[in-house]
């Protein structure tokens, strides 16, 4: 139990940062608006990801989701 919660906290941050970076770079808004909206959503996004991971039954699934999403987002940014 502790392990899956800790994993969701630790893995949720880089995942949210990557998602926010993608939003800040590709959202269909002007540069300031998309950057500041990404900035404002980082912490709520992190918290939401931690809460969302609490419904995933296995810690390995959390890890798999994070890795898969991280790879896709990194690919978008590169």
């Amino acid at each position, binding site marked *: *139990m*502790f392990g*899956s*919660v800790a994993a969701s906290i630790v893995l949720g941050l880089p995942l949210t*940062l*990557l998602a*926010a*970076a993608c939003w*800040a*770079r590709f959202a269909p808004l*002007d*540069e*300031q*608006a998309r*950057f*500041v*909206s*990404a*900035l*404002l959503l*980082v*912490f709520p996004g*992190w*918290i*939401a990801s*931690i*809460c969302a991971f*609490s*419904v995933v*039954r296995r810690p390995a699934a959390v890890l798999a989701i994070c890795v898969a999403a991280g790879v896709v987002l990194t690919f978008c*940014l590169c």
Partner: protein
Amino acid sequence: MSPRDAGASARPAEVSTRRLARKRLNLIRRWSGALVAAPLHIMFVAGALTLFYEPLTRWEEPLAQEPRALGDYQRLLDAAAPPTAEFQLYMPRNDLGWPSVAYVPPEADTWQGFWVGSEPSQRLPRREALAGFLYDAHFFWHRATGLVVEDVAGFLLIGYLLSVASEMLLSCERRTRSPEPLRHMLALASQATRILYAYTGALAVLGPLLVAASVVPVFGGDGERALRVGGYFAEELAEREDPEPGPEAPALALDHLVAAALRAEPRLIVESFSAVNYGRENGTVDVRGSVTGGEELAMSSRRNTSVRVRTLDGRVLGVQGERTEGATAWVARCLQGFHHTWYGGPFVRALLFALVIAGSCAFVARHFRWLERAGRGSGRVARASRVLARWTLGMGSGTFVAVAALFLASRSFPLSWASRSVAEEFVFPVTLAACVGWSLSSSDAVRCCARQLGLAGLTLLPVPILAARWSSAGVFGAGPRLAEVVAVDTGLAVASVALLGAAHALGRSPRSRSLQAALASPGTSSSS
């Protein structure tokens, strides 16, 4: 398989997933709250007191209460003669108080300051640290403890938001089963003020880190563009790179610079100056102040407008205020305005103060109760929970004792004592550590908490009377009274009575007696 059978087999899995989610959310809510409750209590109490920063600066220093007519700016600057090329010069507020100068000495890395008298070469070092210390303490005395601790404070605020979010989700989930969650939701709604302060505070502290982290992935490594787009959130990063001083060059008289700033912003009321590389070719002065009229302006712009002027030729380099456009500036103004409460009057501030303090105390009490329940078993987790429970309660009540001791020290130490401000600052952590030690070693943490609250009330009680030794403008002063000083004296008296009342109520509460009994016998298991 019939549809009915399929539904019956799906239901246990769904219930099990919900139970698991509930368990995890409970774990997140309890442990994140329990770990952050005590340190956040210091932040919230000190932050709530910072709502009254300006009245406190008036109250704490008798020199800030003297009427002072202001001549021209350059004569004042000549009299002040700041010892460094980077300094801040503060004007009297509402024609009261001596002007003052703040600067960083070359061999030090902290700001120091002095008051500028009406006579030439009449300079008195700053003697009082109370208001400034409370401001610093609301993110862990970062001036002394460093920027890393400030960043930790930001993450603690995220921990608090996580605890509140998981509690909200649990309340929503439980609503289908009993009417009780409505009460929970109302209680959570009352925490809106603290949620707002926590979110805006976390953004203010961690915003520069986020901007720094986004330079490569978002801006392709273009730091200048990141600083420009990041605006307020990147200010701290920009300030870390001080411009190198250029060759010496005479600066225009300060009155000319003010005139140039007023041409750029005619409604500006000058309150302070911030100079960088003064007397150098690339020297600038920020003429800062509030803007009169302009009710249509954003609330923060009325309070926080700044015009940057080059000292060499008086050219205006920029106006920071309502004219700064773009989404980043707009969001920053809103966040700053909410966090610094640049709206409403003293009654709004008093209401926010009461909400924040009450919410913080309730948060500490709730997590203390959970920790003491978790500590009734045996094993390492139970032992850690017991220690954490006492630590949380000790920090909860100890913060009030430490604040009260700070106020008492502020009115007791002699004004002529050179080390007075340093000694004053150390009163807070030493008192807090003593209170936590008392709570940890006490066999009865709840009674100890009641005693500490009583001690805080008693410590605060003589402060308004002691304040009359140096200031005649307070409730017990003999001279003409100043509203701000009287308000602080009255507030301290009310706080003292409230603390004594809380101590009395906690000591007599039947609920506290049951807690005392539970804590006295930690081995007793309980399923509650």
